[in-house]
């Protein structure tokens, strides 16, 4: 995938029109990347092993912000066990270890990021936040 296609899919959609943006007061984790200014907070409403909804807030580059939006749509409604599995699948896809599992749905578009190693951190930042959240971290 070339850069233009990557940005075309990502920017035009989720960066400009983020889904599930705005926090509602559920447990949350904030992660910053001080070198570039990415600053994302992810919150999740989890009940009996099911992630009922994921919201996010923050600012940063298009890859990071859009990734938070895609994450909220892809993993919202999944069980925590499934979400943890998909987070790991997202990491291995983005590191270029495999093509990515179909279950990643829309998040498959980030496979292209594997060709831009300097941007892997941007794409994974919201996923790291959710990963920590599911492990029981809560910034509140």
């Amino acid at each position, binding site marked *: 995938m070339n*850069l*233009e296609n990557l*940005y*075309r899919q990502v*920017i*035009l959609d989720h960066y400009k029109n983020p889904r599930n943006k705005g926090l509602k007061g559920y447990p949350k984790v904030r992660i910053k990347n*001080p*070198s*570039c*200014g*990415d600053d994302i907070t992810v919150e999740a409403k989890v009940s009996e092993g099911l992630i009922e909804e994921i919201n996010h807030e923050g*600012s*940063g*580059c*298009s*890859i990071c912000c859009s990734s938070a939006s895609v994450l909220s749509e892809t993993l919202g409604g999944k069980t925590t066990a499934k979400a943890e599995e998909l987070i790991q699948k997202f990491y291995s896809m983005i590191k270029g270890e495999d093509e990515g599992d179909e279950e990643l749905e829309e998040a498959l578009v980030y496979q292209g990021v594997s060709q*831009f190693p*300097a*941007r892997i951190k*941007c794409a994974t930042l919201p996923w790291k936040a959710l990963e920590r959240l599911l492990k029981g971290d809560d910034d509140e």
Partner: protein
Amino acid sequence: MLAVKKIRECFPIYKKHPRLVYLDSAATSLKPQPVLDKMNEYYGEYGVNIHRGVYELSFKATDEYDLAREKVARFINARTEEVVFTSNVTDALNKLALMYAKENIKAGDVVLTSELEHHSSLLPWMKICEEKKAGLRYIPLSEEGRITTENFKKALTDKVKVVALTYVSNVMGYRTPLEEIIPLAHENGSVVIVDAAQAVQHFRVDVKALDCDFLAFSGHKMLGPTGIGVLYGKKRHLKKLQPVFYGGDMNEDVYPDRVEIKEIPYCFEAGTPPIAEAIGLGRAIDFLEEIGLKNIEAHCRELYDYALAKLSGIEGFTLYNKNADIPIIALNIDGVHPHDAATCFEQDKVCIRSGHHCAQLVSRFLNCVGSLRASIYLYNDREDIDMFVGALVKTIELFRKLDGGQ
């Protein structure tokens, strides 16, 4: 213009990456082969500790280390005992702040600095002011973003004990008028600490003529290795400071209840220092002197002017520093996050910096989330500038196209 082709032959990185367009020298410079050779010579031929053994190899290592200090001293017109080796500017400025503040800063005193500072010049004093309940004040920047003598005068009060300023801003490339500021500070009884990390590699810095009290710089931005920095201090100041680190080599006599420390500068260099790096820095200074700082300055200025002329016809970006004194170009593509833009530049192997550049107050002053920074040095040529400007145009067009949804 310098003979860039010939110069590049000295930089092995261009053999490995012939298409490299390196415009990030303000972050770190590339390293010439003679510096690498000199460090290898140390490791391979006399790679033992200094000031320790009485055998010949140790004498040789000590001699070379001392010689490196002499080269640094000559380079900035200091006395050898006024040159303390540290691991970088951050190390130098932190150590100095801790040592100086111990005896000289009390509650109610003021440290005067600026929003143009690199974090390593600002944060040590921010933390000390917090602890000592001293005030941290900023010289208001001019509209253009400069530290001016006029604004310095306005901010100077009798409470100001320390003036900590950058010589050249690592984002804006502005040169601080220290020649005017330092005498005013001294009249006021304040000491002046200069962060010269972006200065020494671009123009002659003469600490005696400047009359600064302390000055720090890193080796790795001036063709030297990483892991070596310099803290200069006036002899009478250094003699009054107590070291913050104690250990091997910095002491003369140790008793069960006390230690007698060595003379300056050795008392500030506890433990085995970065020997190879100091020797490498000495060689880097020779390399710079062989080419000539004046020639480097003229070469970089010509390329900077060339770049600005090319940029003037392009729309869709904001240039933050059109009158930089040092060849640094800081800009943002309108509506595009600097990291998104930098990835586009990378497609053409154009290496530029994006983000805060460890000087977040500058981003706050410019009211941006960060910026793109291209910095020019002696191995750059017009082709590099053409590639940079070409990548800029391509990036502007790409994001315009995406924005238009075509």
